[in-house]
């Protein structure tokens, strides 16, 4: 499995693994019920510790992206697209929340924020067309 870990990236390594596997699942590159490498194999492949890959798989399982059969290994879970969409929106809102708090903390008013958001969105739409 092709995963690129960057130690310079401030995102923890286990989180980088989680994100990359998640993206592969969302893009359909990894299909439902496809088997994943064992935590030990993956650790060796990435020259990282077993505890890191173990944590990544636990996180993926907790978030419902994969399932594990005791003694057999881990597999890609089927995606419930509408539920996933809902979840993505929820996580997006949380990111907005953090961004807003940070902006307000550094002295930007909610009104200015709204205008900035609209402007960025408008530019994005123009580029799309």
């Amino acid at each position: 499995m092709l995963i690129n870990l960057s130690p310079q990236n401030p995102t923890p390594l286990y989180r980088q693994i989680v994100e990359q596997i998640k993206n592969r699942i969302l893009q359909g590159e990894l299909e439902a019920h496809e088997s994943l490498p064992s935590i030990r194999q993956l650790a060796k492949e990435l020259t990282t510790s077993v505890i890191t890959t173990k944590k990544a798989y636990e996180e993926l399982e907790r978030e419902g992206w994969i399932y594990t059969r005791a003694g057999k290994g881990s597999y890609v879970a089927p995606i419930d697209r509408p539920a996933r969409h809902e979840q993505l929106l929820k996580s997006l809102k949380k990111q907005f929340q953090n961004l807003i708090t940070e902006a307000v903390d550094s002295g930007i008013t909610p009104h200015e924020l709204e205008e900035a958001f609209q402007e960025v969105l408008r530019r994005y739409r123009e580029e799309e067309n």
Partner: protein
Amino acid sequence: MQIALSMENVSKEYPNFKLQIASLKLPSGSIMGLVGPNGAGKSTLIKAILNLVPLDTGRITVLGRDHLKQEIEVKQLVGYVPEESNLYEEATPAWLGGFVAHYYATWDDTYYRGLLEKFQIPVRRKVKQLSKGGKMKLSLALQLAHRPDLLLLDEPTAGLDPLARRDLLQELLEVIQDEKRSVLFSSHIVGDVEKVADYVTFLKEGSIVLCEDKEKLLEKWRQVQFKVFDSSRREEIANLFTYGKYCGNYFQGITDHFDEELPVRLKELGAENIQAVPLDLEKIMVILSRGGI
């Protein structure tokens, strides 16, 4: 969970140094990195497991076997690569393989030849003609080839070029593909420990300052900085940190028990512009060695 290595109340006193390990446990199937400044007792700890350093007090077991009462059995289960090459300078890798094979019931000659090839060690060249890295890799091959359940390595990556270091770390990960086998290695190249170790043990002046699951360690340690204008709260805020200092209205602190609650609490106490950044193992080690920031 099986325990590959256990040390209880171990102590050994020298005129200027005392090794004192209350408790250390390494679960099978994992890699533990032993870090700490020079003279912290890393080599002494490793040697004690093999009874190369006789203890004053305490008990050591390898896979449940007492390191004194079942010393020979323990030595069969352990592979030990010392810091300095102790191989006969005049011998060749081929001859050494035959020599070491006599001592181990589990010697796997095909595996040994495979390792020599993989590590690019010429079978017929004398030890004295090998580079420092070459000698290290040869020692490692000799110890891997009897398939030990516990591999002990003292500074294995010191003096190796980046490529050879990567090969070596890969080989350690190969060892623990078998969940029954484990590795304990000391290193002052903290980046190597951060890469492959599951557990990190930090030694200072003969004692364990910290021994933890690496992921938990990296998660719990954070450097936090913010501004505080309310001077009546300064002390209360500083007390939330393991280490910290004020620089005008700025506070810079280190915590070893970070969670989501901390920024919330800091905000309640009047902190502004809170930034929390993760620390790598090297920085954590420097902070622990100095006992401050």
